[in-house]
């Protein structure tokens, strides 16, 4: 691999690592002050355990051998056989993909906030990574779903739809927080949410533009798309709520930015021109409504992982079926409907997401049920009332006050 490409992958990997603390603050600010440290720890735990799981067995199962469409094997266990003969390109790519593996289960933490036992989370994360994330990753990126022609540039299906639907399955087993939805659970620190949003946006350039796995034109276009879709998503959400609810809120801007970023993720290397603006706008508007589904259908997805990541990921992935523009990239993938393509690409997108949804929902539900029946997944009501920070971690975020 050329040195320029290796350099860009290394920088991108560091950018993606930074997204996990960004996500921690994004979620942590939305959480209540007595549970913020638990939220941070659930996220940071993912960057403690997943890199090790990834190197020990995850990468091998997810990628090697490349020609098996369903699952890899044990050939690259513990990085066996990975040398520096390609100028470090393989090793850089494995590190880069490890960052994705780490943030994906972290996304789920927002749904289970305020009530999940940390010990159960500690088991859930590595198990989920291996039996849900790894297979879906394999199928989508180079496996049977990818070979059929479905497109997922940086992980709309493999990461956001996957984690988003897993979040739904997890909260269905876990149950609602005490007092939800009658009792409000407003964010305890909006500034923290905004810092987290800024870090996420910054890191997302590595997530999307890095997924070209080269410092080339496709990376540049993915960078531009990431820039525009996030802006359009934030703008759309703020305008909707300004009209609908009366105020342009910080949380609306933050949520819209993330919705736009999620939606452009699968499409970043396949769309061009004004397409990212349309994708961002649509994601912002749609997600500003899908976050309301939890109250209507009665599932307590605390911080809207389903409403933002699942819905946004699905919107972006399906919009590839309309906006994909292979001529612009000189790439070998199908055209979207707006560029003279047939319904075939949209069909493949629907199939890939459908498969990911069924697999992820079913197995996540099963993992949670097994954990519930063995060690239990939910803290005692008293722990929930006193706050997880003090009860589970023996720490307090803000000394000297706070009635939250």
């Amino acid at each position, binding site marked *: 691999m050329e040195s320029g490409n290796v350099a860009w992958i290394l920088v991108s990997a560091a950018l993606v690592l930074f997204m996990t603390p960004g996500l921690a603050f994004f979620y942590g600010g939305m959480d209540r002050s007595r549970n913020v440290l638990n939220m941070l720890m659930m996220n940071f735990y993912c960057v403690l355990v997943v890199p090790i799981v990834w190197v020990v067995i995850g990468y091998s199962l997810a990628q090697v051998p490349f020609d098996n469409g369903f699952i890899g094997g044990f050939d690259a266990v513990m990085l066996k056989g990975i040398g520096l003969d390609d100028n470090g390109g393989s090793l850089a790519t494995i590190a880069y993909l490890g960052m994705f593996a780490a943030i994906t289960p972290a996304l789920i933490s927002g749904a289970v906030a305020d009530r999940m036992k940390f010990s159960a989370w500690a088991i859930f994360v590595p198990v989920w990574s291996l039996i849900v994330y790894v297979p879906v990753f394999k199928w989508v990126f180079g496996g049977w779903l990818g070979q059929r022609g479905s497109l997922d540039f940086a992980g709309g299906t493999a990461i956001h739809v996957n984690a988003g639907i897993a979040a739904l399955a997890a909260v269905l087993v876990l149950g609602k927080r005490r007092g939800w939805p009658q009792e*409000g659970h*407003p*964010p305890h620190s909006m500034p923290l949410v905004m810092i987290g949003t800024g870090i996420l946006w910054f890191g997302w350039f590595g997530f999307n533009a890095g997924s070209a796995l080269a410092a080339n034109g496709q990376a540049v276009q993915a960078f531009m798309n990431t820039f525009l879709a996030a802006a359009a998503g934030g703008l759309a959400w703020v305008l909707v*709520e300004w009209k*609908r*609810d*009366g*105020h342009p*809120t910080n*949380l*609306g801007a933050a*949520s819209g930015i993330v919705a736009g970023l999620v939606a452009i993720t699968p499409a970043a290397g396949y769309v061009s021109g004004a397409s990212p603006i349309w994708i961002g706008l649509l994601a912002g508007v749609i997600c*500003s409504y899908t*976050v*309301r589904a939890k*109250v209507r259908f009665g599932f307590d997805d605390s911080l*809207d992982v389903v*409403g933002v990541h699942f819905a946004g990921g699905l919107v972006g992935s399906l919009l590839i079926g309309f906006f994909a523009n292979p001529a612009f990239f000189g790439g070998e993938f199908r055209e979207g409907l707006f560029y003279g393509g047939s319904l075939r690409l949209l069909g493949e997108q629907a199939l890939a997401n459908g498969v990911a949804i069924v697999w992820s929902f079913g197995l996540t539900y099963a993992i949670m049920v097994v954990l519930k029946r063995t060690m239990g997944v939910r803290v005692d009501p008293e722990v929930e009332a006193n706050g997880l920070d003090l009860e589970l971690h023996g720490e307090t975020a803000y000394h000297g006050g706070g*009635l939250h």
Partner: protein
Amino acid sequence: MKLITAVVKPFKLDEVKAALRSAGVVGMTVTEVRGFGRQGGHTETYRGAEYQIDFVPKCKLELVVEDADADRLVDVLVEGARTGKIGDGKVWVANIETLVRIRTGESGPDAV
């Protein structure tokens, strides 16, 4: 001696403090508090969901004064804290039996 306690709007605190100082007050204690009265609370909207915030932030002032000064200082305080809108707060006065300045051991009005 009297204990004057007032709950006022936080943004009026500096004005009240300045007015009381001009009127000869040499010390007071301020606490950030939350509560509701006729003003009730307010609503905040997060991701389209409205939350009723019942307890609004206020500042509580406490100062111990000599009997003869109490009425005059209450007037000063009320004047300084008033906006004329709902939520301006309240002032109340109570008798104090004992007051001691810890550093010197002085007690009674000498300690004010």
